[in-house]
């Protein structure tokens, strides 16, 4: 009897050591996204938030590059966060929103419509950058199932070791530095700051399907249902980036959808002159994404619109928010100056 107990304890110990080591190695080989590409770090940063948000932005690169929550707070006292990542597909935005609504209920959700052009999973690497940072719950599992491309393996999303094990010989200092900690955020409430200036030029015309995929429109419908259910105002926005192109047929489809569901739809490309965005100075990559100057202009303009339309409260002067945003603004300004002085 005693012998058996000892054997049992021995096996148990061996298993504990084994799974502990496996966990450690798994964390070590998973990409940290702290230097490049930063986009992979965005999803996880939402969970570090200590204050609530009145506005949530969801979408692809056109949200995390073009809207600055720091400006929204400093100018209007609007509290916000961006749940966007590289090529974040419509259903991924839906599930990231669903995941966020488990812990908070914002007043307004702004969805950037560019991703509607994709009706199918696109790239394994972008899936990873969007989904790996998500906390494990039913939303994550459904998001994985909806996003997997051909040949992908569900288990490897739950156990990152299965996916990243062959990074073992490509480890860098970053992997050890952020082994057991997610470290400082790389974004400013989901906003990735860029200071480069690369003027827009003409891009070659491409063929396109005038019809937006049914599947992505269906996901948009589900997003509208979700917000309606929770009493949240959903706003559709096409940010002012001019590339990739947003075609008139697509614009009409989204406008018709917004009309049918009684939602607000703002196509900002037409408003560029009003906002004061100059595609010679306000873009960091020839018209695809705004740099910090453009993003601040857009935030100033759109903050006013949101505040007026939805009577958003001004949180400036509330101790909890002020402390949070003061520290953030300081880091924001430092980074902006640093990047500017480095010439990018």
């Amino acid at each position, binding site marked *: 009897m005693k012998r058996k107990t000892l054997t049992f304890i021995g096996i148990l110990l061996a298993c504990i050591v084994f799974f502990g080591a496996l966990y450690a190695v798994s964390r070590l080989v998973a*990409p940290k996204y702290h230097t490049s590409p930063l986009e992979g770090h965005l999803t996880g940063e939402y969970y570090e938030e200590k204050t609530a948000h009145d506005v949530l932005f969801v979408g692809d690169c056109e949200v995390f590059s073009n809207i600055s929550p720091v400006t929204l707070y400093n100018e209007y006292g609007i509290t916000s966060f961006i749940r966007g990542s590289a090529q974040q597909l419509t259903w991924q935005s839906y599930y990231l929103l669903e995941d966020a609504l488990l812990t908070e209920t914002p007043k307004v959700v702004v969805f950037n419509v560019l991703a509607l052009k994709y009706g199918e999973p696109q790239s394994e690497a972008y899936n990873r*950058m969007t989904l790996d940072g998500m906390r494990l719950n039913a939303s994550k599992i459904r998001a994985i199932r909806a996003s997997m491309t051909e*040949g992908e393996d569900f288990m490897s999303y739950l156990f990152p070791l299965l*996916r990243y094990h062959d990074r073992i010989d490509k480890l860098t200092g970053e992997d050890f530095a952020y082994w057991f900690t997610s470290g400082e955020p790389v974004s400013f409430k989901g906003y990735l700051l860029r200071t480069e200036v690369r003027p827009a030029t003409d891009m070659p015309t491409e063929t396109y399907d005038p019809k937006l995929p049914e599947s992505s429109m269906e996901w948009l419908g589900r997003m509208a249902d979700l917000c309606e259910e929770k009493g949240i105002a959903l706003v559709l926005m096409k940010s002012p980036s001019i590339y990739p192109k947003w075609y008139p047929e697509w614009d009409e489809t989204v406008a018709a959808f917004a009309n049918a569901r009684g939602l607000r739809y703002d196509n900002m490309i037409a408003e560029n002159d009003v906002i004061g965005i100059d595609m010679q100075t306000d873009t960091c990559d020839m018209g695809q994404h705004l740099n910090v100057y453009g993003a601040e202009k857009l935030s100033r303009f759109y903050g006013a619109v949101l505040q007026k339309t939805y009577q958003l409260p001004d949180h400036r002067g509330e101790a909890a928010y002020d402390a949070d945003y003061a520290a953030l603004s300081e880091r924001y300004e430092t980074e902006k100056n640093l990047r500017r002085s480095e010439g990018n």
Partner: protein
Amino acid sequence: MLFPSWAFLLFLAVLVPVYYLVPKRIQWIVLLLFNAVFVCFAGLLGAVFMAVTVASVYAATRAFDALFTRQRETLAAMKTTHTKEERKKTRLQFEKKRRLILVACLVLNFGILFALKYGAMLGRLSAGLFGGKPFGQDLALTMGISFYTFSTVGYLLDVYRETVPAERNPLKLALFTSFFPLLVQGPITRFETVGKALTAPHAFDGKRFLSASLRIAWGYWKKLIVADRLLVAVKALCARPNVYYGDFIFMEMLLYAACLYADFTGGIDITIGVGEMLGIRIEENFNRPYFSKSISEYWRRWHITLGEWFKRYVYYPLSVSKPMRDLSKATRRFGAGVSRRVPVYLATLLVWALTGAWHGSNLTFLVWGLLNGVVILLSEECKPLYARFHKRFPKLGESAFYRGFAVIRTVLLLSSLRILDCYGTVKDAFSSFFSMFTTWNWGAVFRGGIQSLGLSYTDYAIALFGVLVMFALSMVQRKGTIRKRIMKRGAVFSVCVLLVLIGTILLFGRYGFGFDASQFIYNRF
């Protein structure tokens, strides 16, 4: 379902508890049901072919059985009333009936195998000769058909020869034919042993379970760490014969030898381990083959069950068959040496042609098989020469040095033959092989060559480590099985070994999406 898949592991994780929890009486029925799921999962067409094999072999063996009984009764009744000649005539009549049934059953079963294996090739051939659209291009082997056809036909022949009694329950024959671990990479088994073990009751035994897990893990280790890694380089080398020639071929030979060994023995380790987990002993298929001192010895130690099958059911019957004996007698006037060699030579070459054909439908496999036969015959003819050599240097043959030389010579020889396995045409294979002797390009191999094959230096290092581990274990294995020695050290130690195996597979195995950092570079979208 391939061994390295979640589906297979899940299948096993469900089967094993169910198998041991149900009453022993119906254990084999449960196994049969799981086999059915496994077979159907791979494709319904395969299930149909398998059903045809089971039904035809069952019907034929039952018919043999009935004919044997009737023959005995009839002959016994004739004993006092009829002459010896008459009795012999009756016996021959019964034999003829049985032979007819046997031939029909063989034609049906090998016909399916042949059609699936050669259908597409014949379709292209006839289209080339007579024009028109090639037929049968979508014909492909269904899962395990090369293995289970041989196993089940082996049983058919055993019953025909009256060495094994006919099974009365068709479901038991179905269980033997469809036993799932055998459908992936074999081995070819015998109804007498595995078939009987499958239907016997099996109680759970923790030690056996642990020991079986060790064997399965070791199989995966070889497959995922060594074989699947080296396969990338081997495929790259074979795909471009006009780029990779000369010393690249030497490299290809060695990599392929390691890759094939790790893949095939690894797969068989998993199969035998799964069998053991269910309490069923499956025949060994390998006996440290790369330590053979001659090609014929190698073939007694590599893919043992296939060699045994061919010997038992083709080679011996053919060499002692009436036409062969007549041929031997007819050549007696050329001398006893010639007449005695005729059966051996013809049978050897035919068996090797068939072995080649079994491996693949491409002409390269036929040439590969025949060359194996030729090498074996040549070395048999050289035996007196060797004997004279060893008589003169009696100590040399015993020395470790000479044995090492013989082993390396054998490995190089069989690796050279295997080059035929790598290329689509015999011409490519031969020109690649001979380029090794005409082109000296080690410089190109080491300056960029080995990095262009899809493997990093780390990959080569891991594979080399894996090969060294396999080699070291084989050396240790000469003194008895390693698993027994691990198990002797107690359950805790065995579990630790198992966990180390699993951990290294997870970390160093080649599976899933490879990590290509360039995919993760955000390209402005």
